[in-house]
């Protein structure tokens, strides 16, 4: 985590491009420039700036926006609920779509069900969010008038962005589900269960599925991580007021401290989710349970 924080900081500070120049314009006097540089702490050595920044992080003080002069921590806190809401909804859509599809494809392997589910998967991977989004808007907002086009004010406005993100995730997830389940279904204990005369439904849902969930959980974790950051484009398409939109707005305004905080927040969320996935993995798989080894 510390590595990520330092990497983001250095990345933003070592890359050429002078925020002072951008803020004051080319015609600014050298004295003005120096004054602004000093208030921003830019006259200090980079490592000293980094140390200052880290100290600020511990106190949850992320500095102020260059553009609006507001504290960045407050700006992030305003945007966070929207992103979390969207992530949760997208995850739900993805699971609702991917689990039945993947299970169906595995159980009916080789049939047209399988082919249909996997075609959906390839198609879903190949349609980028910024194509899917407008097409959904065209169909459901403009064509049918069911949902609002963008924003987060109307009650139905969550549906389309969640659908956009969710279907893209479901495409990868259902493929993973299928291959994991197929692998498990070839195991001997499944044969035993079948030989016992259990119903096929019980064999699949109670014996095979729990074990097939392991790799699926890993992918799910990775995807949730990407969701928190990968939603950048989808948030822009739907004008969804989340962290992603804030990131792009700040990039356009050259508001470096805010960009830095956004990137840091998203990366930290990503790392945390991945770490949690590892824990979940251990919980799901008794073989990996820590401290259980007598």
């Amino acid at each position, binding site marked *: 985590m510390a590595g990520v924080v330092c990497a983001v900081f250095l*990345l933003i500070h070592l890359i050429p491009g002078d925020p002072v120049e951008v803020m004051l314009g080319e015609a600014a006097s050298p004295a003005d420039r120096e004054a602004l540089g000093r208030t921003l702490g830019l006259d200090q050595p980079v490592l000293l700036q980094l140390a200052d920044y880290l100290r600020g992080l511990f106190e949850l003080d992320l500095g102020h926006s260059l553009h609006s002069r507001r504290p960045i921590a407050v700006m992030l806190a305003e945007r966070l609920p929207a992103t979390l809401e969207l992530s949760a909804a997208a995850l739900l859509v993805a699971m609702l779509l991917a689990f039945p599809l993947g299970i169906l494809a595995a159980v009916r392997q080789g049939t047209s069900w399988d082919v249909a589910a996997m075609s959906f998967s390839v198609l879903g991977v190949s349609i980028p969010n910024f194509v899917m989004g407008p097409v959904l808007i065209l169909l459901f907002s403009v064509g049918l008038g069911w949902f609002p086009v963008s924003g987060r004010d109307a009650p139905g406005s969550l549906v389309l962005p969640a659908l956009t993100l969710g279907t893209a995730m479901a495409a990868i997830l259902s493929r993973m589900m299928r291959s994991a389940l197929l692998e498990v279904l070839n195991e001997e204990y499944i044969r035993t269960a079948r030989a016992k005369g259990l119903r096929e439904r019980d064999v699949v849902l109670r014996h095979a599925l729990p074990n097939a969930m392991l790799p699926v959980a890993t992918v799910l974790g990775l995807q949730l991580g990407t969701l928190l950051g*990968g939603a*950048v484009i989808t948030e822009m398409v739907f004008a969804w007021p989340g962290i992603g939109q804030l990131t792009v707005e700040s*990039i356009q305004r050259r508001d470096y401290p805010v960009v830095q905080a956004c990137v840091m927040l*998203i*990366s930290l969320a*990503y790392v945390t989710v991945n770490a949690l996935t590892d824990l979940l993995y251990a919980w799901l798989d008794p073989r990996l349970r820590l401290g259980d080894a007598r």
Partner: protein
Amino acid sequence: MRRGLLPLTIFLAWGLLAVLAPVLPLTPGRIDLPHLLEGPGAGAWLGYDELGRPLGDRLLVGASTSFLVALWVVGASLLAGSLIGVFSGLAGAGLDHVLVRVMDIFLAFPGILLAIALAGILGPGIENVVFALTAVGWVGFARLARAQTLVLKEREHVQAALALGARLPRIVLRHLAPLLAAPLIVEATFAAAAIVVAEAGLSFLGLGVQPPEPSWGSMIRDGTRYMLVAPHLVIVPGTALMLVVLAVNLLGDRLRDHLDVRHKVP
């Protein structure tokens, strides 16, 4: 018809367009105001955009942009990534450890976010897009090359070459590279698909190719503003993008089965 034929055709057409676009009589910048936002018709086979420019011509030039970006990024990432990966795999524990940590830090970012941040800070422009995407892209290749090298260097023919006193470049080029090639090529195919999407994504956000130069991503972004009156502005580049990515992904699938990189799912 063989299953790989259609994707291959699309892919080849895309590559051919990229090469031919500069010599074709295309006028992506010609402005024809009377036909503003008009759908497909006699004058322009795919209609006109919001400034009255022919959409078809812009689409073709955009195809060449996305192909060139994908080519450069995949080439550079493949080269840098596999060199670093092989080096890391062959180097002793200490250096290997450091390189793995560096890769881990890169992997700790969601890829597209790092590219967005880099492209945003470097400023818009096609070179910066290539740089940003390469900075994100090399890690995948490096990890794969390292993992493969770790396995391959225990193989008998490599050990034999070492025992015979062959020098490192020779071992890498003649004993490792042929065996590394297959998985790396498959990885490169999937990476190409991802990069086409990423380039269009950056351009969509306004961080990539700059106007008036056409790019599929920026065409889609401009199109979304006129979606109510002229949906073809989004649908045309969107479909092109989807077809290319789909074709490249399918090609990757076929290639993987053909080269038997990972064992097929039973």
